[in-house]
């Protein structure tokens, strides 16, 4: 038995075990590893990436899922502080918090992890084809496989069940062809133990087994498929290369239907919860289908459209009005197949009440999310409390805390959720896991020490060219020997040779020797893609004492041998051209130095509400001094009047405790009646003037977290402000919390949803109002069981487990009446009585209601002060005035401006527990900077030649990151090297040619282009 990771100081171990390598586990791992902790990332599959790696595009941006997740996978793969333990199951975890021992079974791959370089020759030679689980059985893979081409780790695995040798004792083709001798049929499962201070559970989910709902014919009718299967069909990396085909005859389906809530909101299946993502993914799939082929008719059958996330409602509206996706509000009871055409018939009741029958070519079942079943027994063994469905129970408002101390949870295993929520919970769980281990930060991480760099300035270029066979991936098409011989004829080349695998450990050692022996001062590797392998080779250069910018790669595999497999001679000639181009550029490469500066290891949090307080306390618990700035006289914000949640938590009491903790914490300095006036500097080193009670003060900090909150819309409609019986939900909550006597005697209460939300002026959903209405209705029923409550709504968006409370409200007699956007309720006061007239689309007539109290579910707006802060920090806002994150999917907590993070209502409408999770997540992101005593700036970034700059401000307008600023004293532009992302837009736009991007100079590009043919 091998034991690792027990070298921490004292009793606590500065390492974190993350169980599950989906996007939440990946985010948690990266945050912790970038903040000074060793991370063991344990994944039961052969590679990390989880379900996100299987998705085609993602809503609401239609970004390619693989393109987004690949860089994260690569970052994990090359991170010195993350150890991926893949194809491994956790057996048990023992010991006290801070010093857990994790027992893991590493399943035999029958491939030596240290020898396999992922070239794939074994799979190309393997004669056995089996259904491909990654493609949900829609395509085939070999018995030796990687789950997808971008898999991390890129190590092949033999599927013992299907391997011909394991079954019949004959074959061993993979072994014969593996040029690295990586196949090991004698490999056994291995039990290892690792030490970790805290545990993050991120085992993820699986989709509902649609065959249980037999009436839809899944598994019997070939053209009834699940939504996740359709993701694979849409994916360019899927079984049909992204061409939409239906399974029965591989024809393009012209009529596609989606059936929502298959395995969700279905108490008869014991699955009463809403799966959160299905409405949006169905809309996305319909929109993408239309993009593939405008002629495809798409129709979504739904109960409520749940588009509660940021940007979702706009996406939904666009799908309806611009893409022409049809939406039919109808529960579908069965699907009938025409056995000859394999077309499918659906009966439904349309909006006019008529029963219709419609035929479709393909039906997609929007299957719900279930917690990872394989993890259920382990969770029970680990005494981690699960809810009735097997999702992990959270503790009150702290979504990432579990019942077991030292164990934290994130992602869908906590509750059904979409990718941004999953990512931010990953960060949030990392913050908790790190907070517990703050005093042993940095004790388990290895910092690589490189030899001093050789100064090559003034030397003639001496270029070495290393040509890779990549097994037969390149050498099977390209004559690599001819390429390396050709390289020797190029000017400045003093060494050239070819290697079986340029990336293998032995070749790397060889390369270092050759660099020294031949006094190379530039290196060209002709192999695969710099996207995946450049960092590896650059690291080798550094180990050989060369600056990493003296490296250039020629992509002769992905963009040559693989795509010209039938043109061997031409491919060889192209490889020579690519090498010549790279050599030409390499001769002009210059060493670049990134200069260190000392990080101000202090945080600034702007906004003293629930999110801001949580963020400040989280930073302080990690050991970083934090300034907390609150504009008003008191801390607390909106949560002061949040008295209870539907689940029984008490935010206002939680808040009181939180305020006390913040006030008592010696690392936090609270400023009330304060605001930020200006900001200068860059990530790791900012300076601001703040005004406190009118007095000015200067502070320095390394990161800033924006938590400026939001406010309730004050309605201008429905007699609000004119009639004192018209309240907002918050005002009703206040009265309910104080058990207002007046409420005990009322007979009728009407609630109107979407007041100030989802309209032309504010086309977004405020997310919380449906649940708030349900919560207040239930509370009022408790107080006054005889009261009649009518909720006038458009779609009920009680997502996740909030669905129970909606169901409970219905069971308790609360009446829900739908209204349509273009037929809003009419409110009048007649003889002192409120009268509400609403058109009921089911009855197709007006209904008149009387109300003793009318409650308006008023929208959430960004705080009116957020605009001025956006100007001070130069931060972007979205169309609705909320702050805009760097990426809606994978960077929900970061701004594009490095060093700035966001959380709470400032980001968009959300629940109190979500604000807490987001605030912890933002603090976790901030720790990746604050944990560093020094940061490096410079390298391949823009530099301004002051003598040529005329301050025309073209670059200021062009820069997507708002980096160039006018230095008013000098009258020229200043580009902060720490903030510059090196894209080069400014350099191209500059009419005077005053901006140069290092490592991307015109000379370097022209050398390459001139050497084209």
């Amino acid at each position, binding site marked *: 038995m091998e034991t690792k990771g027990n070298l921490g100081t004292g009793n606590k171990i500065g390492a974190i075990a993350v169980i599950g390598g989906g996007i939440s586990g990946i985010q948690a791992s990266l945050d912790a590893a970038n903040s000074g902790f060793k991370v063991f990332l344990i994944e039961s599959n052969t590679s990390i990436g989880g379900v996100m790696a299987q998705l085609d595009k993602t809503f609401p941006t239609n970004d390619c899922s693989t393109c987004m997740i690949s860089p994260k996978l690569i970052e994990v793969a090359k991170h010195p502080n993350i150890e991926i333990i893949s194809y491994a199951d956790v057996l048990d975890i023992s010991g006290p918090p801070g010093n857990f021992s994790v027992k893991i079974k590493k399943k035999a791959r029958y491939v030596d992890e240290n020898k396999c370089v992922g070239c794939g020759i074994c799979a190309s030679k393997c004669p056995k084809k089996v259904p491909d689980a990654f493609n949900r059985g829609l395509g085939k893979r070999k018995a030796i496989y990687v789950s997808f081409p971008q898999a991390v780790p890129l190590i092949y695995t033999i599927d013992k069940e299907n391997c011909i040798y394991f079954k019949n004792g004959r074959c061993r083709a993979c072994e014969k062809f593996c040029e690295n001798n990586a196949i090991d049929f004698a490999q056994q499962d291995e039990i290892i133990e690792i030490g970790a201070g805290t545990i993050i559970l991120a085992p993820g989910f699986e989709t509902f087994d649609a065959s249980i709902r037999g009436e839809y014919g899944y598994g019997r009718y070939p053209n009834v498929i699940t939504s996740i299967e359709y993701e694979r069909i849409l994916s360019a990396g899927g079984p049909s290369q992204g061409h939409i085909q239906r399974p029965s005859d591989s024809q393009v389906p012209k009529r596609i239907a989606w059936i929502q809530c298959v395995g969700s909101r279905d108490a008869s299946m014991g699955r009463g919860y809403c799966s959160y993502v299905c409405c949006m993914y169905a809309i996305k799939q319909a929109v993408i289908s239309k993009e593939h082929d405008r002629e495809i008719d798409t129709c979504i059958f739904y109960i409520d459209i749940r588009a509660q996330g940021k940007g979702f409602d706009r996406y939904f509206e666009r799908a309806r009005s611009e893409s022409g996706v049809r939406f039919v509000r109808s529960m579908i009871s069965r699907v009938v197949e025409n056995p000859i055409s394999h077309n499918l018939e659906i009966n439904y009741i349309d909006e006019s009440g008529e029963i219709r029958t419609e035929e479709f070519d393909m039906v997609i079942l929007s299957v719900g999310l279930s917690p990872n079943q394989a993890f259920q027994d382990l969770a029970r063994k680990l005494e981690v409390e699960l809810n009735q469905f097997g999702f992990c129970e959270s503790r009150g408002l702290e979504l990432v805390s579990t019942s077991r101390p030292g164990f934290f949870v994130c992602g869908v295993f906590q509750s059904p959720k979409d990718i941004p929520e999953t990512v931010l919970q990953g960060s949030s769980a990392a913050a908790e896991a790190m907070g517990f281990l703050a005093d042993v930060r940095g004790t388990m991480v290895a910092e690589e020490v490189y030899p001093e760099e050789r100064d090559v300035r003034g030397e003639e270029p001496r270029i070495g060219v290393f040509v890779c066979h990549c097994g037969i991936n390149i050498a099977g098409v390209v004559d690599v020997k001819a390429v390396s011989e050709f390289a020797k004829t190029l000017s400045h080349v003093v060494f050239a040779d070819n290697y079986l695998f340029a990336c293998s450990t032995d070749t790397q050692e060889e390369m270092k020797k050759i660099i020294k022996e031949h006094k190379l001062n530039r290196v060209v590797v002709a192999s695969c893609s710099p996207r995946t392998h450049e960092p590896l080779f650059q690291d080798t250069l550094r180990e050989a004492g060369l600056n990493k910018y003296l490296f250039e790669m020629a992509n002769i595999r992905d963009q040559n041998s693989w795509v010209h497999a039938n043109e061997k001679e031409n491919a060889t000639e192209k490889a020579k051209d690519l090498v010549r181009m790279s050599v030409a550029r390499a001769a002009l490469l210059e060493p670049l130095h990134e200069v260190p500066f000392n990080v101000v290891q202090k945080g600034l949090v702007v906004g003293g509400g629930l999110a801001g307080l949580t963020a400040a306390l989280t930073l302080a618990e990690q050991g970083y001094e934090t300034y907390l700035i609150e504009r008003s006289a008191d801390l607390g914000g909106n949560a002061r009047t949040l008295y209870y949640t539907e689940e029984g938590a008490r935010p206002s009491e939680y808040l009181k405790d939180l305020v006390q903790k913040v006030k008592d914490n010696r690392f936090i300095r609270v400023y009330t009646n304060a605001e930020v006036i200006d900001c200068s500097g860059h990530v790791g080193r900012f300076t601001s003037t703040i005004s406190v009670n009118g007095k000015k003060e200067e502070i320095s900090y390394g990161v800033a977290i924006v938590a400026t909150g939001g406010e309730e819309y004050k309605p201008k409609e429905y007699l609000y402000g004119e009639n004192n019986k018209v309240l907002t939900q918050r005002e009703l909550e206040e009265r309910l919390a104080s058990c207002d006597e007046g409420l005990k005697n009322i007979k009728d209460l009407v609630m109107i949803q979407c007041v100030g939300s989802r309209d032309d002026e504010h086309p977004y959903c405020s997310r919380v109002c449906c649940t708030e209405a349900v919560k207040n209705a239930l509370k009022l029923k408790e107080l006054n069981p005889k009261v009649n409550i009518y909720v006038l709504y458009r779609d009920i968006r009680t997502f996740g487990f909030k669905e129970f409370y909606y169901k409970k409200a219905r069971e308790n007699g609360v009446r829900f009446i739908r209204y349509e956007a273009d037929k809003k309720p009419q409110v009048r006061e007649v003889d002192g009585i409120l009268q509400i007239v609403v058109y009921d689309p089911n009855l197709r007539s007006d209904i008149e209601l009387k109300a003793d109290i009318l409650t308006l579910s008023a929208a959430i707006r960004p705080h009116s002060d957020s605009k001025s802060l956006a100007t001070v920090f130069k931060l972007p806002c979205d169309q609705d005035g909320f702050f805009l994150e760097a990426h809606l999917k994978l960077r929900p907590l970061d701004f594009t401006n490095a060093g700035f993070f966001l959380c709470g209502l400032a980001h968009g409408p959300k629940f109190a527990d979500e604000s807490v999770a987001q605030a912890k997540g933002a603090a976790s992101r901030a720790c990746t900077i604050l944990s560093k005593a020094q940061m490096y700036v410079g390298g391949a970034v823009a530099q301004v030649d002051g003598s040529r700059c005329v301050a025309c401000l073209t670059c200021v307008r062009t820069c997507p990151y708002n980096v160039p600023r006018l230095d008013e004293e000098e009258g020229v532009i200043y580009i902060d090297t720490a903030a510059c992302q090196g894209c080069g837009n400014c350099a191209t736009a500059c009419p005077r040619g005053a901006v140069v991007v290092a490592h991307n100079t015109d000379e370097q590009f*022209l050398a390459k282009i001139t050497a084209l043919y």
Partner: protein
Amino acid sequence: MEDFQPKIEAFVCTYCTYTAADMAGSQRLQYPSTVRVVKYLCTGKVEIVHILKAFEAGADAVFVGG
């Protein structure tokens, strides 16, 4: 002209089109070997002179993908 195979020079963004070109490789999608790719960090950096020089060097067409 039937056998004419234009030499196409592709100036591409590292984040999107270069990644797509790599993906074409992992899926073994075949295209003419007369295509050459030059990677830019962002195609915002493509200068007019780069395009003209490519023609001067013998390219029949220049493709900018970003």
